[in-house]
């Protein structure tokens, strides 16, 4: 079986599951959950096989792609549909497969007894198939199709408990917010189609390389695609839907709203890297960096355990974008961003599933009612702790490497271009906040005395079907699998990822003087013209090396600061958090209310739009339709007058207009030769009237 057939099968297995479980789930034993889980398991196996086959070649161009016509809008012209497998796809397949499979398994326990069990698994299958479809697409059109189908799955799953008004609103909000991004992305696709004439990535990159796509078209295409990524990956200011999306069942939050779907925007940027222009890279970097610190600051004060994790996700997605953005200027950024996507997927899914395990046990999401759970739920505690340490970036867990790579890239960029000093500052401050809010969460949930004795007394460790996924995900954050230079992603060797990008990008933009290619150990390397090439200056003052040292120093320092602060406040109780909140009341209020972004959107966008809608509808009724009714009235008046004058009985508008038709016909007939017009009009209208009368009688 070739890579292509394998890729196709990876999509088709869960897609078949979607139809099978959806149509026959109720009749199957255990409502078909085993079928869904098994199919995703099979896809996972194929995904791992693909990963091994592709990435272990250590070849930037390893993989396969094929496409054929799909949308035939002219006999000889069609938009194509196709599948591609390369290093990036292979890595993503593993991430999606692993998390989706574990979430399917976990849900057997978590969703047990839910009245909408079948619906849950059906949509989960659709989501998995769409996400596989997204990463296997060789063109923007099918990528967009998958993208929107993921949006649908997300909508349906956020609204799983749709009888709860808050869930009903949350799914609406999620779909609409991402839809705004999607439309921007769609306009970007239109621009690409206009200038390239094809939506296949290969054709688009070729167009960049030979200069057909350049200048403002290239910039706008990149920026608009990033607009889509901002919606999906919850970048400021389109992040507002993600915290509300926590209304969905927790396994869904883990799979869709932490590990995979929200990373699709990051994937999109990585996939279309070669068409992004320098301006786009800067925008990506700044939006990402700002989102990282902005969301982290809100996470500091949230009480709902899932909301803390949700803002953490927004923040970490910002990190990934920051990495990709600076990657346009420094060589390590691209790999760092994608690498962080993969490590984050595992530990954040672990955190959400762990939170689910807690919620399952204590039936509350409020941190204020937890506490002291570490003895009651040892497995959940240990795995949660490992995932937390990975997220906060403790050596040698996976998050240390990926986050450090992003911070190092940002510092290196700032060293080369001091005017962009804000970026590393964002990254480092966000890291400090991350450490604080995560340890705060761990301390509040697992340490101290139980604050709700009732909930605590009923708490118990979750069943194996739920704890097994936690253990696997924790293991994937630990060395040698998940951390260090022996981890799976690194074994797969990110250099090929980078290599293809660098080589293509270098070729593409060398003429524009933005970037050039040099070589390092035989691998092509990208660098900016103004900067210092990586391979040329191996000295100690090499910005890359200095940046790396500084990044490690900074991240270790801020991790310690965050940990110690959280420990002092929530374990040692040196300061009462409530007193602290009073002391800094304005700031605290600002954070608790999430900077009032929801209120601003409500007042600045939704209300004006709704007011406009009502205004237009009223104008439609009174002005546009009013004119129509006025015309009818006038016609009737004239008909009445002429009727009187002709001693004719004209009793309605029907005849009135029929008369005017006759008049028009007559007038025309006189203008032209003969009376044909009158004949025709009279004949047709007469026949029609007669037929109508007959039917009127019949119908009575």
């Amino acid at each position, binding site marked *: 079986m070739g890579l292509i057939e394998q890729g196709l099968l990876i999509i088709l297995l869960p897609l078949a599951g979607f139809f099978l479980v959806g149509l026959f789930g109720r009749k199957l034993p255990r409502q078909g959950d085993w079928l869904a889980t098994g199919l995703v398991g099979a896809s996972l196996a194929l995904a791992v096989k693909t990963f091994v086959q592709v990435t272990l070649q250590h070849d930037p161009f390893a993989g396969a792609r094929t496409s054929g016509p799909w949308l035939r*809008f002219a006999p000889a012209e069609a938009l194509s549909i196709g599948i591609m497998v390369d290093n990036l796809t292979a890595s993503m397949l593993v991430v999606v497969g692993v998390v989706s499979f574990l979430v399917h398994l976990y849900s057997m326990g978590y969703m047990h007894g839910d009245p909408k069990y079948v619906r849950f698994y059906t949509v989960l299958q659709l989501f998995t198939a769409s996400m596989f479809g997204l990463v296997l697409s060789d063109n923007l059109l099918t990528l967009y199709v998958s993208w929107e189908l993921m949006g649908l799955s997300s909508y349906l799953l956020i609204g799983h408990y749709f009888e709860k008004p808050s869930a009903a609103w949350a799914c609406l909000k999620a779909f609409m917010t991402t*839809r705004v991004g999607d439309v921007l992305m769609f306009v970007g696709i239109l621009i690409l189609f206009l200038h390239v004439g094809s939506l296949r990535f290969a054709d688009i990159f070729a167009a960049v390389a030979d200069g057909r796509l350049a200048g403002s078209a290239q910039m706008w295409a990149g920026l608009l695609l990033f607009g889509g990524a901002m919606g999906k990956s919850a970048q400021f200011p389109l992040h507002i839907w993600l915290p509300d999306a926590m209304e969905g069942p927790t396994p869904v939050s883990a799979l869709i709203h932490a590990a995979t779907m929200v990373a699709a925007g990051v994937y999109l940027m990585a996939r279309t890297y070669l068409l992004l222009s320098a301006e786009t890279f800067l925008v990506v970097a700044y939006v990402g960096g700002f989102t990282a610190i902005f969301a982290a600051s809100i996470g500091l004060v949230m009480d709902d355990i899932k909301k803390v994790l949700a803002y953490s996700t927004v923040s970490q997605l910002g990190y990934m974008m920051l990495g990709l953005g600076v990657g346009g200027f420094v060589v390590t950024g691209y790999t760092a961003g994608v690498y962080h996507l993969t490590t984050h997927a595992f530990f954040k899914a672990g955190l959400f599933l762990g939170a689910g395990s807690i919620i399952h046990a204590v039936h509350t999401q409020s941190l204020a009612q937890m506490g002291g759970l570490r003895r009651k739920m040892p497995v959940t505690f240990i795995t949660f702790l490992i995932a937390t340490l990975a997220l906060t970036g403790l050596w040698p867990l996976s998050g240390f490497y990926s986050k450090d790579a992003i911070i190092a890239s940002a510092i290196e960029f700032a060293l080369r271009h001091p005017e962009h000093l804000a970026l590393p500052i964002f990254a480092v401050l966000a890291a400090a906040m991350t450490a604080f809010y995560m340890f705060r969460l761990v301390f509040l949930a697992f340490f101290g005395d139980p604050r709700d004795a009732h909930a605590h007394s009923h708490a118990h460790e979750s069943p194996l079907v739920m704890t097994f996924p936690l253990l696997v995900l924790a293991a994937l954050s630990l060395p040698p699998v998940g951390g260090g230079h022996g981890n799976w992603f690194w074994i797969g060797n990110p250099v090929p990822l980078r290599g293809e990008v660098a080589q293509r990008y270098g070729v593409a933009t060398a003429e524009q003087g933005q970037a050039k290619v040099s070589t390092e150990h035989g691998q092509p390397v990208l660098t900016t013209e103004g900067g210092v090439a990586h391979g040329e200056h191996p000295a100690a003052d090499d910005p890359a090396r200095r940046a790396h040292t500084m990044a490690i120093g900074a991240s270790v320092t801020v991790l310690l600061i965050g940990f110690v602060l959280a420990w002092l406040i929530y374990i040692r109780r040196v300061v009462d958090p409530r007193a602290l909140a009073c002391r800094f009341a304005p700031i605290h209020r600002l954070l608790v209310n999430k900077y009032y972004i929801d209120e601003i959107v409500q007042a600045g966008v939704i209300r004006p739009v709704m007011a406009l809608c009502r205004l237009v509808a009223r104008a439609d009724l009174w002005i546009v339709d009013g004119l129509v009714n006025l015309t009818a009235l006038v016609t009737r008046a004239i008909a009445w007058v002429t009727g009187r004058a002709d001693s004719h009985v004209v009793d309605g508008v029907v005849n009135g207009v029929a008369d005017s038709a006759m008049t028009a016909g007559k007038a025309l007939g006189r203008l032209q030769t003969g009376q*044909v017009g009158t004949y025709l009009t009279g004949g047709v209208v007469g026949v029609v009237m007669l037929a109508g009368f007959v039917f009127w009688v019949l119908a009575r």
Partner: protein
Amino acid sequence: MVVPHILSWIVFAPLIGLAVMSVIPGAAGARAIKWVSLLTTLVVLALSSVLVAEYYGLAPEFRRAFIGLKQSSFPEGSASLFEERIPWIREYNIYYHVGADGLSVILVFLTALLSFLAVFSAWNIEKGVKGFHMLYMLLITGMMGVFVALDLFLFYVFWEVMLLPMYFLIGIWGGPRREYAAIKFFLYTLAGSVLMLIAILVIYMECRTFSIPELVANPPFADRPSVANWLWAGFFIAFAIKIPMFPFHTWLPDAHVEAPTAISVILAGVLLKMGGYGILRVNFPVFPAATHYFIGLVALFGVINIIYGALCAMAQTDFKKLVAYSSVSHMGYVLLGMASLTDAGMNGAVFQMFNHGTSSAMMFMIVGVIYDRAHHRDLSRFGGLGLQMPRYLTIAIIGFFASLGLPGLSSFISEVMVFLGAFKSQSTLGAPQAFGVVYSMQVLTILGTLGVVLGAGYLLYTMQRVYLGKPRDEYANFPDLRPVEYAALVPLAVISVVLGILPNLALNVFNGSMHSLLTLWPPAAAAGFAGL
């Protein structure tokens, strides 16, 4: 299977059904009449499916033909486009002339499909069953006739034949304001048809023919552009009323809201398409130069339709009125697509007509389901139905998402094609420039994409108000979908999914014809025009 005179059979088979019904006693035979109606429409659907199959079996040069624009290899007088031509009124050169290229075939099939499914929606109508179904048969004949007539006089007759039964179907079986709605619909359309009639007669006076193919082959008034422009406008307004194009759309919310479900399905699904069809069958090929002159305005009004319809829909509190305004918005895509004068846009427009036929039919049926149970359509009084009627929710999700153009469902394909085509187009010069207004097709298209956001907005907001949220006690005993409701809804859902995945099944029917139509505006000429 080759059926001789297949188009005539399709057009007149309903009249046979009508004749059969007329001998069944109305009071006692209500059930029998319904079955005759169902059977007749099934036969029409079968014949139309045969037509599609036969069309697929035609040689490529026939499948690339647009009526009147025959390829050189196209034998003169050939019956291969299912043509039938017999003299009707010799003195005036009037023929019974029918024929079908890809554009006609797809719309004939849509008409047959919706006519059949709408019978299920009409199953629970108990008032005047005989009259209802007899008028319904006549309506089908009228609609089918419009889509296959190749003689302008015949076209006009069918256009009027369709109008009359519709008037009575709304006026007798409609809701509380049925008489107002019926007469408004009737007069509005009639006002348009008068303009069309005048234009037809002027053409006849000049060319002494009513034959569409002849007029396409030898465009009238090619040397007098101002006359051609006036005639173009006459036809266009008649068709624009049907589409309906802003500002001629206000008959539509009234007619849709008052009409019984089955008739709303036909109104939205088929009648609106007659407008789009007329523009593509008469305006575009008979007056290519005038089309080029006005095309920028068509695009502009298309975008106005998209946004204006969506804004109006958002503000509605009546479920059915909301769906009606969504039709205004969705038909805007048709105008925008055809105005692009590109392959992608034109085919997108035709495909959008088909998809709007299926999706709006679904939406009206979905409204009908709940109206039959709750006897009101006030969105503010619904809520939580999803929990009480889960199967209804599933179907509604497909219907709503088909309507908002979700990928994987067919309307997505047509919307994408419309936008791709429009964005590439250079259609905005000509009349707008003559009036001193300059705008770019790209900007218009981008504005049009706003409709995608607004569409998602009003549809999901409706979904939320009707199906989600806390269940209400007053709806607790509502039965879930009945078999007859399934029978009407499931085929449409399946078609929507299948054509969303395999769009070529439909596109291959008409993309050849539309491509031929486009040869009237060769890219070189378009470029030259753009340079004016």
